[in-house]
């Protein structure tokens, strides 16, 4: 997994609550058996005016100019600013894959759906929870400041605005460590394989019907 340490990134505001993973990456693109290449179809139904299907040349499709991520000032954004309960609904990991492939490494919201939140950490992305008030003030700042960037420092657990306001955020220690070092979860768990085997023996004795 790619590590995440620090980022000074252009911010794109997506001013909606309850953005679901069906919106982030619509179902027709889930037919792919690959992990990569979902970026051009991130937010497909909001981003394009026509109906998207896998295999289309997305560069030739009509863009919805009203959709925020199509605006010139947000091209190259790596920080997505959004509202509460981001990533709700389907567990599809294609959602963080699409956001990451689009160029986002950080998502800031006042809350996240659990599965999406968890999936981000598996893909070198950092979801950050800030209070609804702070999120609101960031929306206001982005609106009036073209080229608005936020500095995100995972080690220090801070988000710093261009004017130097610093917002601390919480992150689980294990996840932080893994993200900072780009560690593969499976490799770490494999280090506990003796414990897994021992548990399995005991578990099988107690509930043999689970192992047939």
């Amino acid at each position, binding site marked *: 997994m790619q590590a995440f340490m620090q980022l000074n990134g252009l911010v794109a505001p997506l*001013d*909606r*609550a*309850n953005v*679901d993973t*069906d*919106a982030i990456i*619509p*179902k*027709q693109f*889930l*037919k*792919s*058996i*690959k*992990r990569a290449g979902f970026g051009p179809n991130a937010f497909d*139904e909001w981003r394009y005016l026509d*109906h998207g299907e*896998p*295999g289309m040349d997305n560069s030739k499709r009509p863009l919805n100019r009203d959709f925020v991520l199509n605006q010139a000032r947000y091209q190259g954004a790596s920080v997505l600013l959004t*509202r*509460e*309960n981001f990533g*709700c*609904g*389907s*567990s*599809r*990991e294609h959602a*963080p894959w699409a956001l990451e492939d689009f160029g986002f490494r950080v998502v800031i919201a006042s*809350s*996240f*759906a*659990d*599965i999406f939140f*968890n*999936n981000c950490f*598996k*893909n070198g992305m950092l979801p950050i929870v800030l209070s609804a008030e702070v999120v609101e003030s960031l929306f206001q700042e982005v609106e009036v400041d073209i080229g608005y960037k936020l500095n995100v420092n995972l080690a220090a657990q801070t988000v710093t605005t261009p004017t130097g306001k610093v917002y601390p955020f919480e992150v*689980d*220690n*294990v996840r932080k460590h893994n993200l900072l070092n780009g560690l593969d*979860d*499976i490799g770490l*768990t*494999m280090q*506990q*394989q003796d*414990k*897994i085997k021992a*548990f*399995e023996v005991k*578990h099988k004795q*107690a*509930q*043999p*019907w*689970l*192992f*047939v």
Partner: protein
Amino acid sequence: MVAKTLYDKLFDSHVVHEENGTALIYIDRHLVHEVTSPQAFEGLKLANRKVWRVNSILAVPDHNVPTTNRSKGVAGIADPISRLQVQTLDENCAEHGVTEFKMNDMRQGIVHVIGPEQGATLPGMTVVCGDSHTSTHGAFGALAHGIGTSEVEHVMATQCLVQKKSKTLQVLVEGQLGNGVTAKDIALAIIGKIGTAGGNGYAIEFAGSAIRALSMEGRMTLCNMAIEAGARAGMVAVDDTTIDYVRGRPFSPKGQDWDKAVEYWKTLHSDEGAKFDTVVTLSAQDIQPQVTWGTSPEMVVGVDGKVPSLDLAKNEVQRSDWERAYAYMGLTPNTPIDEINIDKVFIGSCTNSRIEDLRAAAAVAKGKHIAPNIKLALVVPGSGLVKAQAELEGLDKIFIDAGFEWREPGCSMCLAMNADRLEPGERCASTSNRNFEGRQGQGGRTHLVSPEMAAAAAVAGHFVDVRLI
């Protein structure tokens, strides 16, 4: 001894290792489908890893499969990308020796229907699947939740999942449901009350006399939609209803194992005096048949209600959500729900495609006919075995005589990955679980309801209170 919740018992009994508040928990059952597994199998191959315990996995294609003619098998799937995904599952399962119910196997169906049907979901288990509706299996007093593809690979390789303990939320539903009011209505009423983020960070235990009175099918419907309330896991304590359902199924324990299992399963309930982080209470008598009006399951009212007006929104964020929802759904505030006409009807999905659901819908449709404005009314059984049982009872004939189409099992128009979908602007009464924008097809408008309410809407051509017909 400290009084424990059901969630505590299930979690604690599966901890392999714990460090800094993060646990490694052992997974008993891993259900797999074609959409979220190919990248996991590929990951194993790239890292030269093996599946830790092959007999913990049960696989089935469900999301992409056609619900019409399957006589040509997988090769007959018209969409080449869908076909490749189903073929890839077949190949991966064959390569690793994983048990798979292939597309034309009688036992094929929606992964969350076939697990319980086969006895592959048992009380006390930890169950995972790369699908958010895995919460369904909590109906058996199991700890079950959806995971992402990276975690699918992790469970395949290690039989474990890295987890932090959730907070606990008890949803108490006391009293008796009125006629025509179902588990689906309880689920939607709860989501209407606590919101789609209300369960974030929680494992929900559904309890109270109204829950005890539900069949296993009803409990599965309820737990299925725990994720729509934001909770990864929903569960119901084990009782005689649970044990009676599990008895005699293909994967259920037999002989002495059965007796030993039942003895253990009977301990799977929250102890007297166990503390929950939060408790929410609903009175069963107050629950009406529910109809969603918007683009989130929390945008829901009783069938006798109206599309709410903006002054009822709790804050600015919700106001703008509702404004977008009115526009997308083509509805104006204060429209009575029973004046909303529909174009299509979908009876199916992991929420409502079990035999009891089909019986309930058929009872409403019997001797009637779908209204002239209904372009398509689909009934998609949850599995081949549900389909066979329904046909044995003559339900297929009731539906066909009433103008419904009787299809092959799969996820179908719940998420429209196969050919079953809404066209832009079409309005659907659906027994599925999500009314998100585009969920059933780009521009499609979904209203979530129970099977009874869907059948009643099909007959009337608009929403109607099933209790009045």
